[in-house]
């Protein structure tokens, strides 16, 4: 089969390499002989380690993507962005309040947003990045956490931002504030934790630990799930 494999020409950091058609950018790097120690991670599009910048033939636009998810095209120019040295202040979440003032103090650059939407264009996750930055300026922290939910911290937004905002770290803070202060509290959780602490399930766990593999699997697959 290998002799029928179509090949395409890509430029890795400016140099020409022939790689199999259908490769992802990460596969192209490795096929070309690069050994990636940084700039690669889960290879499944979850971790955000493999931010890449590429340009396709005939296009003037630099595009951002994940190396493990973006398939190479003929005459594509590619480069890896293994790390973004972005601002990341240290804070104690217990000392913060879930409103605009927290961002004014920790990430004042948020207020430099010119609404150009370049961050949104750069995002490989198709997140409306500018919208969550704007939500913070408007004081809608829950909204910011929600819009930025799919962020995998690849950092491409921050690299392209003309206002030098570090959107992805801002998103992390918004999500943490939401989780700590704004998300609806689940009373059931407290009840269950108390039960666990009081040892209500100790006996059951002990039994399970002593079960044969097979019996444990049966127990798992035949469990009843109650969806309320």
């Amino acid at each position, binding site marked *: 089969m290998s002799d029928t494999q179509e090949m395409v020409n890509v430029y890795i950091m400016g140099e020409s390499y022939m790689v199999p058609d259908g490769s992802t950018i990460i596969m192209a790097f490795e096929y070309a002989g690069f050994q990636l120690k940084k700039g690669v991670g889960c290879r499944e599009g979850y971790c955000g380690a493999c931010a890449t910048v590429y340009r396709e033939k005939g296009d003037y636009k630099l595009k951002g993507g994940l190396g493990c998810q973006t398939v190479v095209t003929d005459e594509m120019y590619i480069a890896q962005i293994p790390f973004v040295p972005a601002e990341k202040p240290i804070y104690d979440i217990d000392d913060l309040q879930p409103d605009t003032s927290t961002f004014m103090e920790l990430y004042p650059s948020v207020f430099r947003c010119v609404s150009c939407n370049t961050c949104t264009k750069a995002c490989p996750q198709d997140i409306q990045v500018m919208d969550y930055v704007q939500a913070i300026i408007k004081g*809608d922290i829950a909204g910011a956490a929600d819009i930025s939910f799919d962020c995998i911290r690849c950092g491409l937004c921050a690299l392209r931002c003309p206002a030098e905002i570090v959107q992805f770290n801002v998103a992390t803070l918004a999500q943490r504030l939401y989780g700590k202060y704004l998300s609806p509290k689940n009373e059931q959780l407290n009840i269950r934790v108390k039960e666990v602490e009081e040892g209500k399930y100790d006996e059951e766990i002990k039994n399970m630990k002593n079960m044969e593999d097979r019996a444990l699997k049966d127990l798992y697959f035949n469990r009843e799930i109650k969806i309320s």
Partner: protein
Amino acid sequence: MKDNIKIPYFPGCTLKTTAKNFEISAIEAGKKIGIEMVELPKWNCCGVVSSLTSDDLMKHMAPIRNFVHAEEMGEQGLVNDKRMLILCSMCFNTMKSSNKRVKGNSEDMKSINDFMYLEKDYEGTVDVVHYFELMKEIGFDKIAEKITKPLKDLKIASYYGCMLLRPKDIAIDDTEAPTIIEDFVSSVGAEPIAWDAMSRCCGSYHTVNNTDIVVNLAKGIIENARKSGAEAIITSCPLCAFNLDNRQKLILEKDPNFKTMPVFYFTQLLAIALGLEEEFIGLDGNYIDPRPLLKEKNLI
């Protein structure tokens, strides 16, 4: 004339944070005088200050993006008035300036539309209108007819500030001798006083890193209002409101003999005069408590 003006409304970021009382009073009072404000489904901060250089198009992008959303509302039939209503003086000035710039310059319009290729093009069909202008269109006499609790004996300094009057092509009234806010004050049954500082700058954004400037200017404005017989100041700008109201704390630190004065958003007076509930007036949001004054006048 339409019975009910249903119009796209651009709030601006501060009306969603520290100036919530401005927004709520405007929305609820609007319902009583025939203005239905429909918030843009999506909007971004306008940038507050308009870019004044010949080549800095990037800074005009924020206003234009908002106009795109207003045009969409018009196309979807969500409104019966295709202009854009703005309350905040600074948003008003910035949005109107950028609108004027791209409407008068097809190259700039094209550059910005090209840059915003993910969105629809702005066609230039939106005009900006301030709440004061809309009230004037409805007619201050008509508004006066709807007043149930006239603000009798309340002496008000109408503070225009900068952004409603300057530059001339942005102004909502005569730049040097405006009357629109005084007309409004009369329509709610209060007494507009004549004073010098009506359009003197409050110090604007210097409040961030040069509070001395703001303290001096704000003190001068408030003292001029008092000397001219005013009991309170009204404004339509959340930044003026912050400098004139909240910064009285710093004025007092510098001059313990300074006499404080309440500062209202004009829509709060309108809401009181229309007999709205306290929750729609939002007096908790005012830094200098206006309740003693309002109680003295039997208004709350």
